[in-house]
């Protein structure tokens, strides 16, 4: 138990809704964790519990073993970047960044030196005298980051830090943000509903739904071994179909889908589902199109769009399931009759869950 930051069984109720339901997380020093989930999943409330703006009904927040649950936000020494930045509009950039330093008694030349260092960190040297209204959205975002980092907080919290930026600017800012945080080496929790953002910024990603943690893991783990159909569907592209589990094989599971039987590779460490109806979640690259194999599932191409050098096909099986398949753009024209087979080349990519969806 050498975790630097620990959330221990946090519960938060608003009136009669359970916004956060027994959330426990542990972060190592310097780790970046992304809280990912759709809106209303409780990720922002979890962040606000961490910051101290909300008090949990149950559970604890600990940093290096010190219980901070009842400590006011003022004294937590957590830095936070707000969704709309919350820069003080009447103060210039320097005064904004110096604000938190003055709270901890850093004044005069020392404050100026550290303000300059923070601004240099986010590549805004010489912007100290600017008014907030004179800055672009991206610059405001960086000032907000510099302001949060200047007092050298123990933990950095980011609330949808890129959601206010143009899509074109977002990708670049995301990289800059990651670089700055890496350089500082600060323990960071980030809230986002964008999978790309979570995957690029988070060492680990915690997927939330309806107040609960669905799965915590590295991006690879979430993609390659989703804990349930929700995580599988929320992370990365996938389609689903109802199947029948027939039995187990040496390498995995045998399933039946509209009369066709496929052998599907198992995921290491995941139990083989019991025989009976199941939900299949399948990545587009885990299927391939074929013309002649007898074991193929007959289907019709209903759509095709280009994704880089390959194309994403949407096909409809004769039984009515809609599935996405990645293949070479020339593999089949729209409307063509094709067969579907699991792609051996990739391995994995087909996940089976009990039928109730959990």
């Amino acid at each position, binding site marked *: 138990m050498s975790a630097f930051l620990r959330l221990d069984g946090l519960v938060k109720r608003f009136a009669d809704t359970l916004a956060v339901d027994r959330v426990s997380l542990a972060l190592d020093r310097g780790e970046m964790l992304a809280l990912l989930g759709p809106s209303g999943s409780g990720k922002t409330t979890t962040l606000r519990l961490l*910051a*101290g*703006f909300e008090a949990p009904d149950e559970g604890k927040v600990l940093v290096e073993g010190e219980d901070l649950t009842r400590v*006011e*936000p*003022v*004294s*937590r*020494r*957590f*830095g*936070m970047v*707000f*969704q*709309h930045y*919350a*820069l*003080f*509009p*009447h*103060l210039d950039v320097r005064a904004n960044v110096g*604000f*938190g330093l003055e*709270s*901890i008694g850093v004044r005069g030349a020392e404050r100026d030196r550290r303000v300059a260092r923070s601004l240099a960190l986010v590549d805004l040297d010489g912007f100290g005298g600017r008014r907030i209204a004179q800055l672009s959205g991206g610059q405001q975002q960086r000032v907000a980051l510099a*302001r*949060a980092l200047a*007092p050298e907080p123990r933990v950095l*919290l980011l609330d949808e830090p890129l959601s206010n930026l143009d899509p074109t600017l977002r990708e670049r800012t995301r990289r800059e943000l990651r670089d700055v945080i890496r350089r500082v080496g600060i323990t960071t929790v980030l809230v986002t509903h964008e999978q790309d953002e979570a995957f690029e910024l988070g060492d680990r990603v915690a997927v939330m739904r309806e107040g609960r943690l669905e799965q915590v893991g590295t991006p690879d783990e979430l993609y390659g071994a989703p804990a349930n159909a929700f995580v599988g569907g929320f992370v990365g592209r996938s389609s689903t179909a109802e199947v029948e589990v027939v039995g187990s094989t040496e390498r995995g599971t045998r399933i039946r889908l509209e009369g066709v039987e496929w052998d599907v590779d198992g995921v290491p460490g995941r139990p083989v589902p019991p025989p009976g109806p199941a939900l299949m979640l399948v990545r587009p690259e885990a299927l391939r199109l074929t013309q002649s194999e007898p074991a193929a599932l007959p289907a019709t191409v209903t759509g095709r769009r280009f994704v880089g050098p390959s194309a994403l096909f949407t096909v409809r099986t004769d039984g009515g399931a809609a599935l996405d398949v990645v293949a070479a753009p020339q593999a089949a024209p729209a409307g063509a009759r094709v067969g579907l087979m699991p792609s051996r080349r990739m391995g994995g990519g087909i996940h089976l869950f009990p039928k109730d969806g959990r």
Partner: protein
Amino acid sequence: MTAPPRARLLAGLLLAVLAWLVIYPIALVLLEGLRDPSGWTLRYVRLFLERPTEWRALWGSLWISVVSVILAALIGIPLAFLLARYDLPGGRVLGGLVALPAVLPPLVGVVAFLFLYGETGFVSLLVQRLLGLTEPPWRLQGAGAILLVHAYSMYVYFYLFVRAALFSLDGSLYEAAASLGAGRWRTLRRVVLPQLYPALGGAALLTFMTALASFSAPYIFGGGFRVMPTQIVSTRLNGDDRLAMVETISLTILALAALWLFRGAGNVDLAGGGRKGAGPERIRVRSRALRVAVAGLGWGLAGLLLLPHLTLLLVSFVPLGTWTTEPLPPVYTLQNYVTLIQDPVRARPLLNSLWLAAVATAAAVSIALGGAILSASRRVRGGRVIETLLALPWAVPGTVFAIALATAFSVHAPWVGRVVLVGTLWILPLAYLIRNLPITSRAILAGIRGLDPSLDEAAAALGAGRGRTLRRITLPLLRPALLAGASLAFVTALGDFVTSIMLYTYDTRPISLEILSSLRQSDVGVAAAYGVVLMVISGAVFAFGADRGGSG
């Protein structure tokens, strides 16, 4: 792009009308104060400068206004913080209640204070009995009484402005300050207060101008203590018309100087729009005892603020001559209200006020709408001038306008734009109209500026002409602003006292004058009944304007 000839013609016409109504009468006062039948003279200016009473009145006006601002701020600002930032039991209701002094027309508020704190008022008698005194504990007279009424009626400006500004702050600013280690005081001092400066400036200016122009309280309670508006009226009653004009000029100069001093004061969006992020969350008071104490304080205060309203209601049930020395009236009837409706002499002022206010409001809304559309379109030159002319009457105390209109429209000289209106039906609606132009046009202009300009272009692209665009797009969207402007104008005109007292005729006497004469005949019941009717109509019109006008 240049404006179409018709718009230019309209703008020119409007400019001429506004110049004639707003600038011309005041210019005439300025000129006539420097003339007498034999020609140009500085005699009256010298007379003014030599008389210590004039200086005393001017100084009285100035310091009363400054102290009114301070008192209003001391009540309004903490109240706004308490009700906007803290989550109290019944806080929403309380928030509405404390704005209620706004529905009391100036004279009615003064009358209510008389019933409450006057020599034979409820509170005075109560204190006298409790302490076993043989005389009333205080006399409601002089500067103290005026300041009491001003503080009561004008803290609402500070309360509303500061509350709106607090609501429009991005809530995460508080959290940002907290996460940067700033405690409550430092957050207040460094983050919140600096952002309230525009609101505080706006409220201070509004309070100062209102206090400077205030007439009812000094007129009823002033006694020997004079401020410039009451001084002007008494000089005029003495027949020194030209001296009154010089006094008028001095008051105008004081008002303009204040306006210039506060020129940086911002305009506040009372609807609280224009913020990004969520509004600030209210602070929950955790300690139970503190919650009860704060809520008790708030409700106690609300009771105090509602006392004048309740007093009026109570006194309005008292028949003539039945209440002499008892602490509470012994007899109650509905007779006063019946009289108000059935006696034609009593009903007349009520009907007068209603039609005068309606005509003035309709005219003010039309002119303000035309002016606002022309000045917002930016294609018509002179738009800025129109806007300034529409706003100008705000800077000029009501007494000044009354004198100016009495001067301009008492002579028959059509070739210089002067006709005799004084003593006719039309002088009062005209006076109300001019006084209402600023509030009406401000509301309508705000509405027009809030419209998406591309709507006009979209309508044009869909083949709608100017008239159809106005009728089908602009006016329906402006409805909230029009209703807000109209209700403000109507309520102000309905309760007007300061211009009426100088310009009314027997046939057009409005409610306020009838209240005054009922008081003089010691018919307190009827005076209070008139007050209640005014209060109820004002409240209803405000509520209607706010409701139909939407929150936008």
